[in-house]
């Protein structure tokens, strides 16, 4: 039974890899790239929010830092984004550890409030900082060496880059989920006092998780900057933080599959609605997100995946019986 499930997932994954060979629609490619991007951000949020239970609503700040580091290294110093992305991740991770360390004395909603305030502060500082060209933002130039400077004119290379990144991340999270570290994180989430009693220092694990989560979000931000080729401080608005949280919650918080499922279901759906209700240009997708979010929290707090796991197994059981 488990084997059928694995075969199903492998086939689904192969389809995702082969999609660019069958379609030339750049609109479709764009939707898929953004879906993977949101998936990536959401999985990285889920490591902090889901696994160790610290609900940050400031992840847009880390996405922004990643985008700015990679972009400034490229524009000012000519350093390739292939190096800029991981560097952005490390810088953002360290930054996050430093600013979150004092915030971890706060619990529950207060921690969330502090993260919102931190992201808002950072955005405000960037708006007033000449080095990052204030609120005008930075346009990324095109060069002649797309493979070195990650500035492809076609969408297909971006598709494979982000699909590769997401695949690596999913593999990492699967390993993390069953590792000693993963269990330590979940122990801290469930009960900090118990964790401390069995020699798991909650603060230490929170900081490790912060580094991983913020670093990964920054890598996603760096990719986003290379893809969209324009960045400005509005990337750090709270709405983008919320957007990165939603797939994880709707799919199933604290699970490996939750954010993947949430992003795959929601982003294409909202894009479809946006294009079919073209008279309403903005806001439709977020209305959909918000309604689904409210319904999920109200009726199914463990997310779609909790419901799906049962259904999927029933389906296979019926299939096997026949």
């Amino acid at each position, binding site marked *: 039974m488990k084997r059928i499930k694995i075969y199903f997932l492998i086939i689904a994954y192969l389809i995702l890899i082969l999609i660019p060979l069958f379609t030339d629609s750049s609109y479709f490619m764009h939707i898929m790239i953004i879906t993977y991007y949101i998936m990536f951000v959401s999985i990285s949020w889920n490591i902090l929010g889901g696994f160790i239970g610290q*609900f940050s609503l400031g992840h847009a700040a880390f996405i922004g830092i990643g985008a700015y580091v990679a972009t400034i290294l490229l524009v000012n110093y000519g350093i390739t984004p292939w190096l800029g992305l991981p560097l952005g991740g490390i810088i953002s991770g360290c930054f996050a550890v430093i600013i979150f360390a004092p915030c971890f004395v*706060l619990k529950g909603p*207060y921690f969330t409030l*502090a993260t919102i305030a931190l992201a808002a502060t950072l955005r405000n500082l960037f708006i007033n900082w000449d080095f990052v060209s204030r609120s005008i933002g930075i346009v990324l130039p095109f060069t002649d060496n797309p493979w070195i400077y990650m500035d492809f004119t076609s969408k297909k290379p971006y598709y494979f880059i982000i699909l590769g990144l997401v695949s690596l991340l999913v593999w990492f999270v699967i390993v993390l989920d069953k590792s000693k570290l993963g269990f330590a994180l979940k122990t801290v989430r469930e009960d900090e006092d118990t964790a401390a009693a069995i020699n798991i220092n909650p603060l230490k694990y929170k900081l490790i998780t912060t580094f991983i989560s913020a670093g990964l979000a920054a890598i996603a931000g760096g990719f986003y900057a290379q893809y969209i080729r324009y960045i400005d401080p509005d990337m750090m608005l709270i709405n983008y933080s919320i957007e990165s949280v939603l797939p994880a919650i709707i799919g199933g918080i604290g699970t490996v599959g939750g954010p993947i499922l949430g992003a795959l279901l929601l982003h294409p759906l909202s894009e479809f609605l946006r294009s079919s209700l073209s008279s309403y240009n903005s806001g439709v997708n*977020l*209305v959909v997100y918000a309604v689904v979010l*409210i319904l999920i929290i109200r009726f199914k707090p463990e997310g779609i995946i909790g419901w799906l796991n049962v259904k999927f197994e029933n389906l296979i059981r019926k299939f096997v019986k026949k």
Partner: protein
Amino acid sequence: MDILPQVLINGIFIGSFYSLIAMGLNIIFGVMKVVNFCQGELLMIGMYASYFLVTVLGMNPYLTPVIVIILMFIMGGLIQFGLITPILSKGGSDYSQIFLTVGLGLLFQNIALLSFSSNYRTIQIEYSTSFNLFGQIISLPKFISFIVLLIVSYLLYFFLSKTDLGKKIRATSQNPLGARLVGINDKQIYIITYGIGAALAGTAGALLLPFYFVFPLIGEVFQLRAFVVVVLGGLGSIKGAFFGGIILGLLETVGAIIVGPSLKDSIVFISFIFILIFREVFQSRQE
């Protein structure tokens, strides 16, 4: 330093708005222990409601709060009845509280964006003049709003401390179990409380309209500041929220003079984080 009195006056005016929004947050937190992340969006709804009452029905902008209070009270009550109470009765973890109210905020914001577009709108009022008080120039709309705000704040204080219903609300906030034991219907109190919280945000919105512009994302401007005020003034304290709001308004306007207006957000938010952390550390030391 001749601008100082003027700065202080402006600080008190804008601070009184923060007070009113924060009182709404505070009463909701005090009774249900819910941190309401959509308070700013409730203000936005109040502003739009007032805007359409003025432009479509031609009402006087200072009469709209009466209708806005009723509308927002009903709306808040429905939100509490349909969404928040069920979640609280399931156990009401931090997780569901935070993301339910965040989701509501997102919903309101984007419905407004869909229906009214992201344009900034203002109303024209006849008496947008200013007058001279002890040599200081004071804008009349701001002054009227300030007076109405003071009256509303006093009425809320009176309601909570003197009336039966207010006493029931305070009892529920101090000891939910005890309140239930003496026969207070806590579900009903919750609905009324959230209704009042929403009505306060709506009132602030309606009073803000005569001299501010309304747009779908306006909630964010006030939301975080309302949290700052609540933390400054102490959670669950109405008086604290009132003075906290004034202090924040002053901090912001004086800070804007010292470091320049574009960095005032940073000052407010950084001081907020510091206060949050110090409060927490101080409290745990005391225990």
